[in-house]
């Protein structure tokens, strides 16, 4: 287990995180600019991989009636979640009527974001728009997002893809306490170079459940951290477990976590086909067909590279997380790739 730092007050984020010189932010409103800069520092681990080609974010606050819509003549593309999507010339446009519009020029690395800053605006609207813009630009640069935790030890990489509530953070924290290195407990970027597929963090900071974290003495200060909207506390685990960051991970195992009511936890092998289908809902696929196709091919490569399992964590994990998880991982094949 990595050495622990003092269990006193710990800063929840990296205020000193520098943003790269090739990233520029234009925003005339000082408070909004500070807020977005803070969010960009939070995303600094992922942003670092987007360069060195320039990325320019331009933010404009507008009254609801002044938020631009999708221009006439734009080609309608399939919607993505709450966004209507269109293409106009070399631009991709994501729109929420009267609330927000993101216009992307992927070739130039420019994202222009308009948003309505009304009193009843959602608190996570702007971070969501910034994430959308950066992930779309990243996917055009060969970096594809996946909702997954990622850890590594002894040259083996473990990816845990899953929706919120599947237990990624609890599993990740348990493994980091056991000496695993980690990228993120929630979201990573996949990239294919000339060699194997590897993963890098999009952000590192964990949102810890207080009841889970306070089980561990070194996290007893968790109550001192400011609560987030959902009551969790934000913390970079590196502050408590120095040396636990990994720069990149080559995935060896895909473990799909599920919380079950069973007494005993278990791992169960699943087919690559099953794993691929489970990855799709955890992937934010671009509305641009060419980019989306490259993303799908990367997911295919990921499942071909990995051994694929379900990880059912039951009541024994709640009672004795470290021992339970150690036993589960020891039951995985030691000759990955031999299938």
């Amino acid at each position: 287990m990595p050495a622990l730092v003092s269990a006193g007050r710990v800063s929840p984020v990296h205020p000193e995180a520098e943003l790269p010189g090739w990233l520029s932010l234009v925003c005339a409103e000082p408070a909004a600019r500070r807020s977005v800069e803070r969010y960009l520092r939070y995303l600094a681990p992922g942003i670092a991989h987007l360069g060195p080609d320039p990325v320019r974010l331009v933010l404009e606050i507008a009254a609801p009636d002044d938020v631009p819509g999708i221009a006439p003549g734009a080609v309608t593309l399939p919607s993505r979640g709450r966004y209507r999507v269109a293409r106009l010339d070399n631009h991709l446009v994501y729109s929420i009527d009267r609330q927000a519009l993101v216009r992307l020029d992927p070739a130039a690395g420019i994202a222009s974001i308009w948003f309505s800053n009304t009193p009843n605006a959602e608190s996570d609207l702007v971070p969501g728009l910034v994430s959308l813009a950066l992930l779309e630009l990243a996917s055009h640069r060969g970096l594809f997002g996946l909702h997954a935790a990622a850890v590594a030890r002894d040259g083996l990489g473990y990816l845990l893809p899953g929706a919120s509530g599947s237990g990624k953070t609890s599993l990740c924290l348990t493994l980091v306490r056991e000496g695993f290195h980690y990228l993120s407990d929630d979201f990573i970027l996949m990239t294919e170079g000339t060699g194997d597929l590897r993963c890098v963090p999009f952000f590192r900071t964990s949102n810890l459940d207080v009841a889970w974290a306070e089980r561990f003495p070194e996290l007893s200060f968790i109550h001192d951290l400011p609560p987030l909207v959902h009551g969790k506390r934000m913390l970079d685990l590196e502050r408590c477990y120095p040396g636990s960051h990994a720069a990149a991970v080559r995935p060896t195992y895909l473990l799909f976590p599920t919380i079950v009511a069973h007494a005993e936890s278990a791992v169960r092998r699943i087919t690559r086909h099953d794993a691929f289908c489970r990855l799709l809902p955890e992937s934010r696929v671009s509305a641009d067909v060419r980019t989306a196709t490259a993303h799908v091919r990367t997911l295919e490569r990921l499942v071909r590279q990995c051994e694929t399992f379900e990880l059912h964590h039951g009541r024994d994990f709640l009672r004795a997380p470290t021992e339970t998880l150690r036993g589960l991982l020891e039951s995985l094949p030691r000759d990955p790739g031999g299938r």
Partner: protein
Amino acid sequence: MTRVIRNPAVVCTDLDDGAVLLDLDTTAYYSLNRTAVGIWKLIGDEPMVEAIAARVAEKYDVDHERALASVKRLIAALEHEKLIRTESP
């Protein structure tokens, strides 16, 4: 003679243990069995239904009428999901 045209927004991922068609327009995905993915690939090579059925009959050693019925059934299902479209003269 009916011509079959794949939807260009559909990506086929053929893994060792099954294949998946992903419609990038809707993000809906569909699992295909081995025979179905074989027919999907044939559609890329040979767009005419009769010719696809002939290739299926040869590959799986079944009579042409039975192959044609199977191919038409799959094509109707794929067209219903907008994964392909068909053109008849």
